[in-house]
């Protein structure tokens, strides 16, 4: 462990030693192009917006806790208009300002490290991508001072979001924010793809690349092909709103269904954009804490490719009730996409099978992810069934379904990744005991919040209603759900406490506290500016494991086979 205390010697170049250019500390954050610093700024920004979006979620749940009530707080009365604004901004913040930047944080920090590179392909573009995120956030929240924010839902369907029913600046600024955030993601995707194709260390073939990088690669391709589409669609909406355009105005030759097609052509891949990197992180964590290589590496890569490809052909399952699309086709493709997803579930559980499982907090969070994702996935099949969906569409069943994927599963995976990678990013360990408490509270919390929503949906409670009448009997399930959401915020608070505690008092991590497999663990914690002074030889997808355990690498019967099979 002594190696951690001393930075490895900087590699010499003709120009001298590689060090970060000197800048005053406060100034550094504004000018840095180091992928690790940018990643940390992404993470902090994302976590800030998690708290903003989470506060809105708590307000929404409190409003719905009991029937026929109007929540009144100092300076806030939750009228129907305010309620509509809250769920619109809640969704926009969580999708575009929390989860997307959080994934960009993980990708920025660990893609270069995992492939043995010194930085991203375009460091200055990378910094620009990051700064577009706070810019987008500011534009979005400016609307609170410009006549009220958007209130047409995160989908902003026309004509609801059109000039007639959403006058004012709210939707305009919302479109502006999404255009900035979309540009951020698109430039980021270009950066990730180029980095992965051009900057892999010698010996790091595509099929030796960590699964996390594979998932970032396919996520980036999805971003590249879906974000420009929604940007174009939103610009059309903007033209309708501000220049008298008639794209989505049937009275003048426009078409409202067209908007839904454009939106969901992006909207469905967006779900995979939000979950693939997390699946990648889980695929790093489960093998390490099962002390086994990932079961079926190649199958996992192909499954990810299949999800990416099929993900572009399922979008209209969000439009079953419009009557304007071919339900059978889109139901079939939606069922089909559950096959590669099932392959992944199989790979993860088979990796754990007969492994020497270490019950660390990161591993428990990962297992939490598997169980939550299973529920989210299975309820997705209900929604994908055209006949069933016509009853479930726009009910709380759908709300429960996508929150199981994008909150329950995503939070578990995000905390798994944070517990796993925090030591590398800061040099200190998070508190394991507090982490396990957090697992328990979060698990109870998310299930209490979202499971009752399935029942509410089946009883017919529509989404996006500000309140409901007493006689419907939805009160106690809603109360349960609200109570659960408070528990979720306790779990997040536990993490914040853990974070500040660990920064000062956490155990010193050392280079590789988990005896993990991939290249980010071959350098110090945190890594120096230039990342690596030396790289181990890369002969499998687990170079650091091979270097740490030469006896196993040499005696492993499958070793030669795996080496040859992972060489394309």
């Amino acid at each position, binding site marked *: *462990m002594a190696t951690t205390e001393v930075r490895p010697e900087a590699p010499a170049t003709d120009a001298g030693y590689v060090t970060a250019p000197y800048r005053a500390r406060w100034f550094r954050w504004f000018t840095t192009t180091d992928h690790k610093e940018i990643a940390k700024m992404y993470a902090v920004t994302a976590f800030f917006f998690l708290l903003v979006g989470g506060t809105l979620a708590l307000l929404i749940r409190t409003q719905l806790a009991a029937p026929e009530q109007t929540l009144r707080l100092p300076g806030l009365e939750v009228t129907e208009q305010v309620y509509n604004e809250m769920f619109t901004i809640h969704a926009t913040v969580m999708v575009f300002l929390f989860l997307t930047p959080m994934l960009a944080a993980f990708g920025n920090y660990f893609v270069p490290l995992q492939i*043995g*590179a*010194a930085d991203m*392909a*375009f460091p200055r*573009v990378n910094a620009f991508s990051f700064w577009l995120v706070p810019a987008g956030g500011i534009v979005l929240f400016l609307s609170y001072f410009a006549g009220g924010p958007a209130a047409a839902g995160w989908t902003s369907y026309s004509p609801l979001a059109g000039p007639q029913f959403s006058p004012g600046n709210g939707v305009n600024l919302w479109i502006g924010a999404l255009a900035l955030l979309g540009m951020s993601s*698109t430039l980021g*995707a*270009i*950066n990730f*793809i*180029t980095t992965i*194709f*051009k*900057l*892999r*260390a*010698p010996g790091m073939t595509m099929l030796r690349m960590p699964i996390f990088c594979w998932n970032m690669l396919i996520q980036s391709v999805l971003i*590249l*092909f*879906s*974000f*420009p*589409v929604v*940007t*174009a669609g939103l*610009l*059309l909406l903007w*033209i*309708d709103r501000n*220049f*008298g*355009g*008639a*794209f989505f*105005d049937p009275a*003048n*030759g*426009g*078409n409202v269904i*067209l908007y839904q*097609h*454009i939106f969901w052509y992006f909207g469905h891949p967006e779900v995979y954009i939000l979950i693939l990197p997390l699946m990648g992180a889980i695929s790093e964590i489960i093998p390490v804490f099962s002390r086994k290589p990932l079961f079926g590496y190649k199958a996992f890569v192909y499954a990810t490719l299949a999800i990416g490809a099929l993900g572009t052909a399922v979008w209209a399952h969000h439009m079953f009730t419009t009557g304007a699309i071919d339900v059978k086709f889109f139901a079939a493709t939606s069922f089909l996409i559950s096959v590669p997803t099932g392959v992944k579930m199989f790979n993860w559980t088979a990796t754990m099978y007969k492994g020497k499982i*270490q019950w660390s907090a990161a591993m428990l969070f990962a297992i939490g992810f598997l169980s939550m994702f299973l529920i989210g996935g299975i309820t997705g099949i209900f929604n994908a069934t055209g006949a069933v969906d016509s009853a479930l569409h726009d009910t709380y069943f759908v709300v429960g379904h996508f929150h199981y994927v994008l909150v329950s599963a995503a939070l578990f995976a995000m905390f798994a990744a944070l517990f796993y990678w925090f030591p590398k990013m800061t040099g200190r360990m998070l508190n394991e005991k507090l982490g396990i408490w957090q697992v328990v509270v979060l698990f109870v919390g998310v299930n209490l919040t979202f499971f009752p929503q399935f029942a509410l949906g089946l009883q017919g409670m529509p989404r996006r209603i500000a309140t409901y009448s007493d006689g419907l009997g939805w009160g106690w399930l809603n109360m349960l759900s609200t109570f659960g959401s408070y528990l979720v915020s306790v779990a997040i608070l536990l993490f914040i406490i853990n974070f500040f505690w660990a920064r000062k008092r956490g155990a010193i991590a*050392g*280079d*590789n*506290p*988990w*005896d993990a497999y991939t290249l980010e663990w071959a350098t110090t914690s945190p890594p120096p500016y230039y990342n*690596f*002074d*030396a*790289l*181990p*030889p890369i002969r499998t997808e687990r170079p650091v494991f091979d*270097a*740490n355990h*030469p006896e196993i690498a040499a005696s492993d019967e499958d070793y030669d086979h795996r080496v040859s099979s992972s060489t394309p």
Partner: protein
Amino acid sequence: MTATALDREDWELPDSFEDEGGMSMPVMGTVLFIASEVMFFATLFGTYYALRAQASQWPPADVEELPIFIPIVLTAILLTSSVSMHGAVWGVRNNNRTVFVSSLAITVVLGLVFLVGEVFDALEAGFEISSGAYGSIFFTLLSFHVLHVTGGVVFLAYLLFGAAAGRFSSRNYQQVESASYYWHFVDIVWIFVFTTLYIIQ
């Protein structure tokens, strides 16, 4: 769980991280950027054809047939600029400064002429962006193409200043190559715009 002291004898740091085969990084970045732009314009063209497919009459009865002469001239200008752009890349690749700088200058001038022509021709149309779905998509397609040409001309002008200062050579012309890909892309989009708006109508 603690890692043993590592035998780092066979560890080394590669001299160069960049994989030298295939495209250079800036060119790959440009190609990926163009891919995203393709999706952007595909959405606009998709919108055009979707609106056209559901219309009972397209273009609407009150829209006069658009004169095609100026768009044909503009197409010829833009295609010529693609050729001169190609010449600029050839020039810089072969260290032929005269060909490089003059071809680049010709491309910038042709781009400017095209821009002026496209804007004035669009203003001549007897309808507006607010006169129904046809007008909306007509001016949207044209405006976004104009914006892209403008971006291209600005970038080419920036390169021209660099070229005049002798910044590029056969060993350093990735920016010129990237700009040429982008310029050809903008040309191809114009061919689609021209065919869609003026030929098929």
